[in-house]
């Protein structure tokens, strides 16, 4: 293998598994250390800069970082990264004076944002301080998108959302709330320099099976029902409720029903429990509230009597796998199952729909009716029009919407400054040694086995009665500190200086995880087999040194390194050093100062 180029910005970034997995690349270990040090406001600002909605995301994020977390590879469970974010938000105090101020002068460019969900709000936040005139449209009376209309208040209190939306509205976009865009063509004709479409994936899929029409008064499409609940238009439901579907929407529907009068609420999914789309913790939360999840039941018909829904029938199926490993659901032949009910919530999927975008404005759609959008620049085939969030590539989540927002803002900014939008600004990378003395390091590197702490909950006797009462209480500072200490500090990198190494093996002997090997060089696949411990996780890089005096090379498997620094502590020559790699994504604001520097 060739010697590793640790100068390449991705190399150390990939080692910080959580940050690499985060769509917005939030510097996770950096803010976790701040939380451990009680620097909540600082931790909040690291988050706010990167992901715009720390208080919201600290309660609702899909947390792609957690399955990636290294702690999960060396122990059972990852660090509770998401809930630590909430600790920063809960205890930060007043941070208003740290926020950017509204631009004092405008640059004369006008940008329209369609939809006021997290994607558009991120574009607004990035562009407003640069002097853009941003016009924010939404058909709803308040900004926030699905964070407001879909996510139930018992998971995300309105005050938390309001606070973070207001930070952006404070930058003074021109608000056109309660205004639905019915024609993109007409909007473009108003002479905007750029348009960002952040209109989400607003249509819930329906289920056309016998009885749907006849019983329609008691059959509701999940996301429509949730937004009516959110706006207070609906405040009760029948005693017996069936929720169809296995995604997070279904979980929000069933838990909401339980709070609006549903006594027996049952979730029914077509396939297996394991294959459900909902995150494991969402399923746990629902079951914790006494909601059973029945699987392998395919809806057959809505049963009704005198125009009133009385129940539903299902066919029992089982999973069979064909030669290609594809799964088929085949009937078991058992008699159909009848579940009696008063209401059904259909939460079987969400779709995009763009009836208001004309097809003759140079904006191409693919055969599935989705706009053709560049995954990096987020530009459509109409150079003035950009997409982001659920509108761009189908329903995802808030953090992806934020990441798209940042990327689209860079594109819009570059385009309107006359630069090539394909030329993306690289992240800033800082490497700094953490050595403070012979045995002193600037971070807490004493790693121990330490199981994940549970977030305390409010008593269900209260929360099941009040749909606006938040269920989770969040970590208090003490628990937050304990959980923060589980972080392995993966951004404190092991940096190897081949010239200094005397090949004494001290690092090899001390490394608790058998990461380090001195061996003759070879091809990667073969080399992975003959290290101190086999390096089977190919998603994790091998760090290979230039040739050493004995003609061997140092090979470090990054996979399960604890970043404990024992190698550096043991090295007699300082060939190993622990250096913090602070990687920050460049947003439109930085790109601006750079291009003018």
């Amino acid at each position, binding site marked *: 293998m060739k010697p590793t180029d640790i100068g390449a910005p991705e190399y150390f970034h990939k080692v910080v598994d959580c940050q690499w997995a985060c769509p917005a690349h939030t510097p996770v270990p950096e803010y976790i250390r701040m939380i451990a040090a009680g620097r909540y406001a600082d931790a909040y600002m690291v988050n706010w800069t990167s992901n715009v909605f720390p208080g919201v995301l600290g309660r609702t994020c899909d947390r792609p970082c957690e399955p990636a977390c290294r702690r999960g590879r*060396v122990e059972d469970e990852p660090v509770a990264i998401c809930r630590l974010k909430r600790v920063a938000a809960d205890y930060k105090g007043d941070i208003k004076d740290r926020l950017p101020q509204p631009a004092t002068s405008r640059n004369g460019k006008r940008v329209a944002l369609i939809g006021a969900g997290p994607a558009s709000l991120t574009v607004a936040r990035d562009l407003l301080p640069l002097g853009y005139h941003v016009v924010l449209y939404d058909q709803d009376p308040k900004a926030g998108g699905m964070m407001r209309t879909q996510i139930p208040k018992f998971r995300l209190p309105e005050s938390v959302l309001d606070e973070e939306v207001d930070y952006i509205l404070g930058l003074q976009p021109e608000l056109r709330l309660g205004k639905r865009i019915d024609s993109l063509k007409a909007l473009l004709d108003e002479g905007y320099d750029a348009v960002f479409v952040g209109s989400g994936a607003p249509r819930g899929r329906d289920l056309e099976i016998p009885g749907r029409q006849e019983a329609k008064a008691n059959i509701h499409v999940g996301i429509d029902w949730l937004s009516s609940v959110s706006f207070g238009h609906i405040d009760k439901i029948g005693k017996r409720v069936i929720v169809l579907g296995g995604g997070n929407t279904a979980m929000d529907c069933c838990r909401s029903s339980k709070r609006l009068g549903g006594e027996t609420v049952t979730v029914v999914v077509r396939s297996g429990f394991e294959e459900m789309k909902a995150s494991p913790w969402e399923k746990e939360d629902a079951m914790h509230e006494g909601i059973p999840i029945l699987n392998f039941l395919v809806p057959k018909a809505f049963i009704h009597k005198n125009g009133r829904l009385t129940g539903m029938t299902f066919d029992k199926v089982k999973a069979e796998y064909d030669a290609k490993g594809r799964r088929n659901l085949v009937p078991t032949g058992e008699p159909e199952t009848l579940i009696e009910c008063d209401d059904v919530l259909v939460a079987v999927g969400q779709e995009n729909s763009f009836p208001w975008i004309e097809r003759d404005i140079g904006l191409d759609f693919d055969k599935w009716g989705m706009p053709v959008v560049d995954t990096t620049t987020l530009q459509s085939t109409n150079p003035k029009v950009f997409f982001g969030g659920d509108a761009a590539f189908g329903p995802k989540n808030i953090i992806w919407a934020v990441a798209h927002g940042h990327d689209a803002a860079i594109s819009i900014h570059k385009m309107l400054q006359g630069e090539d939008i394909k030329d993306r600004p690289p992240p800033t990378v800082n490497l700094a040694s953490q050595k403070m003395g012979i045995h002193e390091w600037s971070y807490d590197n004493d*790693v121990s086995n330490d199981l994940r702490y549970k977030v305390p909950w409010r008593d269900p006797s209260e929360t099941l009665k009040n749909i606006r009462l938040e269920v989770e209480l969040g970590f208090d500072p003490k628990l937050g500190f304990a959980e923060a200490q589980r972080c392995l500090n993966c951004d404190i990198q092991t940096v190897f200086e081949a010239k200094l190494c*005397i090949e*004494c093996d001290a690092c090899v002997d001390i490394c608790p*995880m*058998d990461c380090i090997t001195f061996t003759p060089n070879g091809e990667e696949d073969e080399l992975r087999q003959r290290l101190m411990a086999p390096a089977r996780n190919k998603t994790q890089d091998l760090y290979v040194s230039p040739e050493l*005096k004995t003609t061997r090379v140092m090979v470090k498997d990054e996979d*399960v390194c604890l970043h404990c620094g024992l190698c550096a*502590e043991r*090295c007699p020559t300082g060939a190993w050093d622990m250096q913090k790699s602070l990687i920050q994504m460049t947003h439109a604001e930085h790109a601006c100062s750079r291009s003018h520097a």
Partner: protein
Amino acid sequence: MTYLAKPKLRHPDLPINKLGYTRRDYEGSVSTLCAGCGHDSISAAIIQACFELDLPPHRIAKLSGIGCSSKTPTYFLGHSHGFNSVHGRMPSVLTGANLANRDLLYLGVSGDGDSASIGLGQFAHCIRRGVNMVYIVENNGVYGLTKGQFSATADRGSKSKRGAINGDSSIDLVSMALQLGATYIARSFSGDKTQLVPLIKAAILHKGAAFLDVISPCVAFNNHLGSTKSFDYVREHNEAVNRLDMMTPRAAITAEYAPGTVESVTQHDGSTIHLRKLAANYDPHDRIAAMTYLQERASAGEVVTGLLYVDNDPSDLHDSLNTVAAPLNGLGETELCPGPAALDKINASLR
């Protein structure tokens, strides 16, 4: 030294031996030696060897004298018996322990100061008695613990860290062990575990006095230019006569060798050592030839390593004393004090 404890976490794919242990289970407390000390690598090699041989830790006794090297038993085999004796006296304590309980595996760990200076007599008598043990000298050419004075194994003409030249002749413990009748003799280097680990394993399986001289650079006091025990010097002058590739009874040879380059040595317990020859004419069964070869290469400035001598049919102290097969410490009062009739018989035989 390191102040942090080594975390208990381990690599999830770490191999597990027949007893269900990983290599980590053979570790001891975290080392307090200087970072980079060769002795720590030897500890790691001992750990690896015991792990690979599936040895139950509670059947091993570690004995040592005084010195950085003699401190190391604390840093490996944390679940074994240990005795940190007086400077240079490890051999007699080990001999006594071995006489009392012949069933344990005896690991004597010593330094060049401990064995070649103050303990030279002890070393000599223990070897000539053929005590069944593995005797490892962690040889750095200095008294590390007392800040780097030349030891008796320092080569004449080598230079101390402060520039003093050693004017005394050096003691070569390997040559002495050959002369004194050790039945397994090897030399290796702390910086070459691929050579060292199999040598330790074979020594453990050897029934008799097995002696290993392991050159082990002292990074604090003897790893400079002008030292003949530094990493660089040893690497440049290392002449390995052979390599031990495989040595358990179970393992089959997987590598392919040119005919005539591999020799199989079957040990007393049925285990086989496969020796890959590097010096074509070197015969590890010829004690006299070995002595000559060593002197020759040493005068050419080379450090000869590898398995230097092995007796295929060794015997030990218990054989020559004709002791009972059961460990003496397990005998009861009736066996130990057979009564006046037995005494009379013995007395009569001496008349």
